[in-house]
């Protein structure tokens, strides 16, 4: 039986217990899947987990608190679930994690760059996977691209491609592409002079349309309708279309995610204007990792910034 068939069976089995299983189904074009909410056994027919399974189903779990819900989960999705559980935002016993070996997901912007001379991604009529390549059917003929060149950046530094703590695991485990996150992207960025970094963010944020897709796509952004960014009383953030306020929100967002962000990258992927907002969160994730020896969604225990101990074991105050 193929892995897809096994996954469908696992979903049907989970439905005996869970009211809904969240996975991925066909999307609006050949390069995109859409989140799929399966409530009846026949709904599983449309499930497909693989290279196009970009979105993070853990995002929806807080909405379903109080009823049992299952998610088909990549490694990163499962880390979001674990972080939600560790913060008591969802109950572990209310979630069924159906894991499979994730070999990375597509980055449509990278496809756009590769296809620049051929067509836009939206003109691709079909995608066929052939081993380590994908073959795209375009109006100008077939284009073969190695998957490695169009895979999301987060996947190349992934240490946990298989759902940790899966209730059901389907198929073989995937090999982790990396042993550790070396934060090479962040190191390179932070090596730039402050003025250049400031100029970079001002330029990037200048095209922000303030749609808050970054916030709403974040599985750990659970304030939802009560976000400080749009609170009018008190009116913390101006409604003006200025870089200052847009940048201010990103700083708020990243600060609220310090020690909570699992690096799923949905904020950046969701941004319609292609602003690399994950970098803000990575800056804080690295600090938390170094200060508290804590990786959100991976390490057990209360997240460090949600509690305190009189003596932080990893902070050597007297050595400073």
């Amino acid at each position, binding site marked *: 039986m193929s892995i897809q068939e096994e996954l469908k069976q696992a979903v049907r089995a989970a439905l005996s217990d869970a009211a809904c299983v969240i996975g991925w189904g066909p999307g609006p*074009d050949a390069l995109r899947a859409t989140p799929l909410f399966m409530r009846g056994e026949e709904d599983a027919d449309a499930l497909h987990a693989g290279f196009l399974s970009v979105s993070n189903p853990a995002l929806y779990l807080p909405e379903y608190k109080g009823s049992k819900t299952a998610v088909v989960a990549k490694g990163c999705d499962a880390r979001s679930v674990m972080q939600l559980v560790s913060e008591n935002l969802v109950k572990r016993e209310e979630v069924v994690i159906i894991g499979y070996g994730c070999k990375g997901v597509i980055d449509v912007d990278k496809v*756009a760059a590769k296809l620049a001379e051929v067509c836009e991604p939206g003109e691709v*009529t079909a995608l066929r996977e052939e081993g380590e390549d994908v073959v795209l059917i375009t109006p100008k003929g077939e284009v073969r691209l190695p998957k490695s060149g169009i895979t999301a950046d987060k996947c190349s530094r992934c240490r946990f491609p298989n759902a940790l703590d899966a209730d059901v695991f389907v198929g073989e485990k995937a090999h982790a592409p990396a042993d550790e996150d070396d934060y090479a992207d962040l190191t390179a960025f932070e090596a730039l002079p402050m003025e250049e970094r400031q100029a970079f963010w001002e330029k*990037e944020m200048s095209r922000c349309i303030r*749609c808050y897709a970054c916030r709403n796509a974040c599985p750990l952004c659970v304030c939802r309708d009560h976000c400080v960014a749009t609170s009018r009383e008190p009116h913390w953030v101006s409604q003006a279309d200025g870089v200052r306020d847009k940048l201010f929100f990103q700083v708020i967002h990243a600060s609220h995610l310090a020690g909570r962000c699992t690096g799923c990258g949905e904020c950046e992927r969701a941004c*319609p204007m292609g602003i690399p907002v994950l970098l803000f969160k990575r800056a804080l994730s690295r600090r938390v990792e170094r200060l508290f020896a804590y990786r959100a969604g991976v390490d057990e225990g209360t997240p460090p910034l949600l509690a305190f101990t009189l003596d932080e074991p990893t902070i050597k105050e007297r050595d400073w």
Partner: protein
Amino acid sequence: MSGSKYIAYDALPSWLAGLAREALVYAPRREGKAVTYRPLAEGEMPELRQRPTESAKHVVFPRSEALFTFAKTPGKPGVSLEEPEEPGRVVVFGALSCDARGFFAFDPVYNGSGTSQYPSGALKDPYYLKRREKTLLIVRACAAPLATCFCHWVGGGPASDQGADVLATDVEGGLVLRAVTEQGGALLASLPDAATEQENAAAAAHAGAEEKMGEAPDLADAPKALAKLFENTAFWGKESAHCLSCGTCTYLCPTCYCFNITDESNGIAGARIRSWDNCMSPLFTLETSGHNPRIGKAARLKNRIGHKFSYYPQLHDGRFSCCGCGRCIKSCPSSVDVRKIVLEAIKEVANG
């Protein structure tokens, strides 16, 4: 198709720079992974390969604009108010035909023409009209649709010149430009005439693009169907399950025209601004009492779809408040598909 002009791609930056001496010229510009409509640098080539991520509406309806500024002088009574500067002339080069048609949804709301329900006495919006009247659109016809395009479902077409001042069409080596309005013609004065074969090539490109659009379903029943489904929470719950309730669809939409007004002050000076608002946000309907009649994303998505395909057409002679650009589908982080929802609504009601 007589009287068209031609410009080679190579000559485009200098021609646009020439236009920029008379007006603020916006054009598609690649910025990172996105394509925006922005003023180009002198001599810069506009992005002609990838269609703009955002619509051109911000040119006429800025993301935020000061209605006036206010200041108080310490120790003196009263507040001084200042009007903003008058907007100048604007030319948008490379707007898509859907972008141009998008303004048709704005116009009756802001130009005081009223609606079938409120035929007279509607107020004119001077801020919108000042910019609208001074903006010329050079529309660039699309050669082929994206999977998310559906302009022909809602009265448009890939090479439609509706709302355009100039229609530009890609031919070998450059663009054939045809004036649609007199003001548009004035923009083309310095350009040489197109050869007959170039004009023919442009016409063939239009026909080719239209052919690629495929069949358009009949949406005539959409307004009634959506009205009937107003109370159907199961339908809207299902359709909105994957929606994130963010503002991407609304803010990229060429026809979404809602705004919010706030006073933004710093100390004793500030501005009253109006800025884009969107019905996917909980604050859109939050009342002063704290009550919110539209709780949850299902009710919000229902409003967005209902507004475009039912409430607006009921007030505006059956015209949809949608130009079919498909940006709401293409850029939606969770691929909510407005086409699918409208068709399912029609089907749901037809099947009883």
